[in-house]
């Protein structure tokens, strides 16, 4: 029997992996992918909670509606984000996180 | 519009006008002169009265209750008089300086007037802060030292005063919270006072709040050991700023203690640990700074340190807290303000003309500048407490005030402190006479030449010296303004 706990553990692992990737990876594209993974983890948690939170015997769809919004927003973020990353690549010929360290102190 | 509002607004408006291009000297002299007349007018009106007069209030916020409330009693009027006199003198003695000198003098004076004449804690605090900014800027920009050094001095003063004001703010906030009766917070001093009278706090708590206020107000007044900003700041500050800050603005902290802390926390200063701490600190002012002053080898250092030292006596009056001592403290505030402004003003002239203030390079100035010498003598003898000049009346009342409660055979800590403090009177004579001896006595030093200022430039100093003489011979003039009990 798969319980809410299982979903949450998977979601938590996914979130942690994403966070670890964001921290550890130097390629901005990959960092960005890890960020998407964290969003997915959140989505998974939302869906899980929604499924196990029954209102009148049916799952509560408010949470799931948020999932749709999240996916949409993520898409928008990717669109804008990739544009910025491309601009970065154009000017620095690199997508390494270490290529942006001029602003400091 | 009440006359007090006019008094506060006049210098500030004049400053604004000068900033916008009005002729600096004419505008500022005119404004301060009218101001002096207005203050004298209020003093005459108040003559023989008691309690708060000329009150006028403009509500600003309902809760916390905040209003631009003005009002004056004897203490405020005496200090306003001090401000008006010193401001006029400080501005008058400026020669060939850019307008910012006039503007900043007006702002410092206006701020001080605001602090002394408003009766809302918020504005009392606010006006004082307003006056601090030009002080800081003037020391940093036009101080008498190398740019790096004067900036360092200005920073030191600003950080001390800034931190002090914040501690003070914390203390005031605490007061407001404790003494706002009913469901509303109020910053109105009278309301807080009546509440304090109705529901006094337990002594232990009064002591805590009083101590916070003491630290806050104290660092504004260069209470030992929070004094190390003062001497370099005064020694470096441009003349009008040194006159106004040491003469007037510094009195704000003392005024606050007398006007805010003591009435609201009548037992605060008498709880043993607070009293002992205060006594130790003020002895630091008197004895330690007395010795430091003796060690000074330049006139500006002597004056600056002596000004720190003399604060100890006023704190002594506050520590005693008796009617006589407090009135003495107010008189001494007035007296010290006038005398130190006079001395700083003359010191500034000397620096301008001679280029040095080192004792071992000076000498014999009395020969060629007799009028200058006499004026200086007024200042220096006032500051060592010579009877006939105002400081004496203040000091003697403070000392007497400490002895009103007396048991033969046993002296309290307070009274022992007075005895030690009396030794400070000897010390102040030592350094002042040493200064006077090295500068004015002896044969004129070679290469140094100084003549009396022309009459019009003597006027501001004569005005201050005359004030010292008149109020010194007739201190009851000031006492009559303070008929109501403190």
């Amino acid at each position, binding site marked *: 029997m798969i319980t809410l706990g299982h979903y949450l553990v998977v979601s938590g692992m996914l979130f942690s992996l994403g*966070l670890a990737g*964001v*921290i550890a990876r130097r390629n901005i594209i990959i*960092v960005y992918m890890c960020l998407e993974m964290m969003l997915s983890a959140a989505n998974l948690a939302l869906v899980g909670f929604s499924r196990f939170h029954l209102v009148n015997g049916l799952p509560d769809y408010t949470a799931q509606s948020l999932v749709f919004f999240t996916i949409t927003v993520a898409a928008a973020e990717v669109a804008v984000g990739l544009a910025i990353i491309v601009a970065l690549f154009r000017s620095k010929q690199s997508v390494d*996180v*270490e290529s*942006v*360290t*001029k*602003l*400091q*102190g | 519009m009440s006359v007090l509002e006019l008094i506060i607004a006049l210098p500030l408006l004049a400053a604004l006008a000068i900033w916008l291009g009005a002729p600096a000297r004419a505008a500022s002299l005119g404004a301060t002169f009218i101001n002096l007349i207005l203050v004298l007018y209020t003093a005459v009106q108040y003559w023989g009265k008691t309690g708060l007069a000329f009150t006028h209030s403009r509500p600003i916020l309902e809760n916390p209750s905040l209003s631009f409330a003005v009002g004056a009693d004897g203490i405020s009027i005496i200090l306003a008089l001090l401000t008006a006199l010193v401001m006029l003198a400080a501005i008058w003695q400026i020669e060939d300086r850019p307008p910012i000198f006039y503007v900043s003098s007006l702002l410092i004076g206006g701020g001080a007037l605001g602090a002394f004449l408003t009766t809302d804690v918020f504005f009392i605090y606010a006006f004082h802060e307003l006056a601090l900014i030009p002080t800081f800027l003037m020391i940093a920009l036009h101080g008498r030292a190398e740019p790096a050094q004067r900036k360092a001095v200005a920073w*030191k003063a600003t950080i*001390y005063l800034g931190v002090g004001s914040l501690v003070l703010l914390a203390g005031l906030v605490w007061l407001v919270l404790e003494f706002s009766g009913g469901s509303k917070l109020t910053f109105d001093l009278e309301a807080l006072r009546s509440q304090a009278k109705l529901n006094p706090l337990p002594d232990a708590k009064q002591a805590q709040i009083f101590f916070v206020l003491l630290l806050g107000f104290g660092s504004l007044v260069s209470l*030992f*050991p929070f*004094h*190390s*900003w003062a001497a370099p700041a005064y020694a470096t500050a441009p003349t009008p700023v040194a006159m106004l800050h040491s003469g007037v603005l510094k009195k704000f902290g003392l005024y606050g203690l007398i006007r805010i802390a003591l009435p609201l926390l009548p037992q605060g200063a008498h709880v043993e640990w607070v009293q002992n701490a205060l006594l130790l600190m003020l002895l630091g002012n008197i004895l330690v700074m007395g*010795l*430091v002053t003796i*060690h000074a080898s330049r006139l500006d250092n002597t004056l600056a340190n002596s000004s720190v030292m003399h604060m100890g006596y006023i704190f002594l009056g506050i520590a005693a807290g*008796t*009617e*006589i001592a407090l*009135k003495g403290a107010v008189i001494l505030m007035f007296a010290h303000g006038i005398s130190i402004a006079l001395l700083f003003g003359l010191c500034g002239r000397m620096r301008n003309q001679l280029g040095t203030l080192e004792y071992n390079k000076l000498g014999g100035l*009395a020969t060629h500048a007799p009028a200058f010498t006499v004026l200086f003598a007024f200042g220096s003898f006032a500051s060592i407490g010579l*009877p*006939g000049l105002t400081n*004496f*009346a203040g000091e*003697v*009342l403070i000392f*007497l005030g*400490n*002895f*009103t*409660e*007396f*048991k*033969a*055979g046993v002296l309290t800590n307070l*009274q022992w402190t*007075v005895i030690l403090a*009396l*030794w400070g*009177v*000897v010390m102040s004579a*030592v350094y002042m*006479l*040493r200064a006077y*001896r090295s500068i004015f*006595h*002896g*044969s004129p030093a070679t290469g140094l030449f100084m003549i009396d200022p022309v009459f019009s430039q003597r006027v501001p100093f004569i005005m201050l010296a005359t004030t010292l003489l008149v109020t010194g011979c*007739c*201190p*009851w003039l000031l*006492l009559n303004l303070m*008929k109501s009990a403190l």
Partner: protein
Amino acid sequence: MHASIILLLPFFSALVILLGHRQLKGASVLISVGSSIISFIACLFFLAAEDDNKLLLPFLDVGGHFHAGIEVLIDKQSRGMMFIVSFIGMLVHIFSLGYMKDDDAKPRFFGSLSLFMFSMTGIVLAGNLIMMFIFWELVGLSSYLLIGHWYQKASAAEACKKAFLTNRIGDFGFMIGILLLFGANHGSVNLDDLATAFKSGPLAPGAPGYSAGFTTAAALCIFLGAVGKSAQFPLHVWLPDAMEGPTPVSALIHAATMVAAGVYMLVRVSFLIEASPLAAEIIAGIGCFTALLAALMATQQNDIKRVLAYSTLSQLGYMVMAVGAVAMAAQHGHEAHGPNPGHPAMFHLYTHAFFKAMLFLGSGAVIYACHHEQDIWKMGGLRKHMPVTFWTFLIGTLALMGLPWITSGFYSKEAILGAAYDSGCSILFHSAALTALLTSFYMMRLVIIAFFGKPRTESAHHATEVPVIMCLPLIALAVFSVLSAWDGFATPLQALKPAHEPPHATVLFASIAAFIIGTGGAIYLYRGKDKDPISIKLFANKFYFDEIYAVIVRICQDRLAWIVTALERVFVDGLIARLPTAIVARLGAATRLLQGGHLQGYTFLLGGGVIAVIYLVVFVLPRMGH
């Protein structure tokens, strides 16, 4: 009415001269001299005034809590003292007209003189201790100004400073004494109130809270004021140096009046001294010691003014001793005789004022005639050149030595010796007698060296008699030196005289013997000598007091100031100002390191921050009871 004129006239004279001497020019001198003459005339009316205590000006008035005004207290002491002050003051003013004729700073001199007259009058008329203290300090100021009249001279500049500071130390004690009395007497420092309080009020023995230690402390503190002003040991060092001032000033201030103010004040508070046996003994002891010490020093001085200065010191010691001795005698039950008798100290003060002022003015005349030569060994033979000066000077000297039955000095000295005898302390009496002997010795030495023999220098040779305006005061004072103790002369002053009683045989013998031995010794040793046959370094160098004090001041003041300044810099400034700023600066710099600009660092901190927050909120805070 008259009293206020006496007080205020010199004040306005001083003020007018101060403000307008440039416009007034020579007129300022006239104003000052005129005011002193009018004061004297007013004083003559004053002598007839009833006992009274009037408030002139409410100086300090704190509601119902405290008041101390400028008052005019009229009683026998103030009447007598007032006469002395205004009379000698007037004569000195007149004498100065001649003496200071060529001085550029005449207006300043006369202005200060007027200021002094004002201040001294204030002391005399003071009805309460605060007023006394006010004028006490003001005479100090005028003395400072007058000693430093020739401030261009370094010695004068140092001397005036020294005088003021030494007096300040005395005033330190005086003020403490006033405070103690103020506290103990519940807020009144009125002399009448205090006297009552000591007789039957809260300060009387047996009253609740009475403390003998307190009474002694208060008496000694007040006495310290007199020690300063009357130049008693150990604060005597300023008076000889004060001779740097113009000689008329020395006559008026540092011989006749101001220095005697200490004695006057002690007599005013004699109820206090009588209340404390210990204080009385200490006062008598100090006075006696000063008298002896100064007399010894005087025997080896060569400066005419310094001899007189030490003589003044010695005589002041005499008077102070008398104050103590009378109090001691009173404690032993030797009540003075007759109704309301005078005080021996006051009596001596009064006779001494005349002859010592005379001597100083005489020395001034000598100095003037010898072109500002002060060394007696460079004079000689002046007897013939300056007969008036010589004779008046001789009269003054004899009065000081106490020529029996003729001069006033004899009577007053005898009164003091009598008081010392009555005090029951034989040391007092013996040293007093010894002092009297020494006095005769050094004064006769002075006269012989300066006036007899042959002129030893050019300036002495060419000396001529001084102008009439300077002679007149000399003559007037000489007359008073002789006559002032005689019955029937200057009636109002008689009240100051102790009741005339047949002197004790021992006392009479001692004073006559002292006169004869001292005079004889001096004649024997100094007749016809061109240089001092005896040389005692210790006396000539004033027992090295100045040197010792210089060391003490250097250690206790300058070194200490240096050390304290250094400590203040390091500790106070360091701990309160520099250390916290340094800490905050360090913290600021450290926090800046967080902001390294590396994205990975930021994400790491952000992730770590999330974890830390979760830990804080989920695990820490719930346990803290938040």
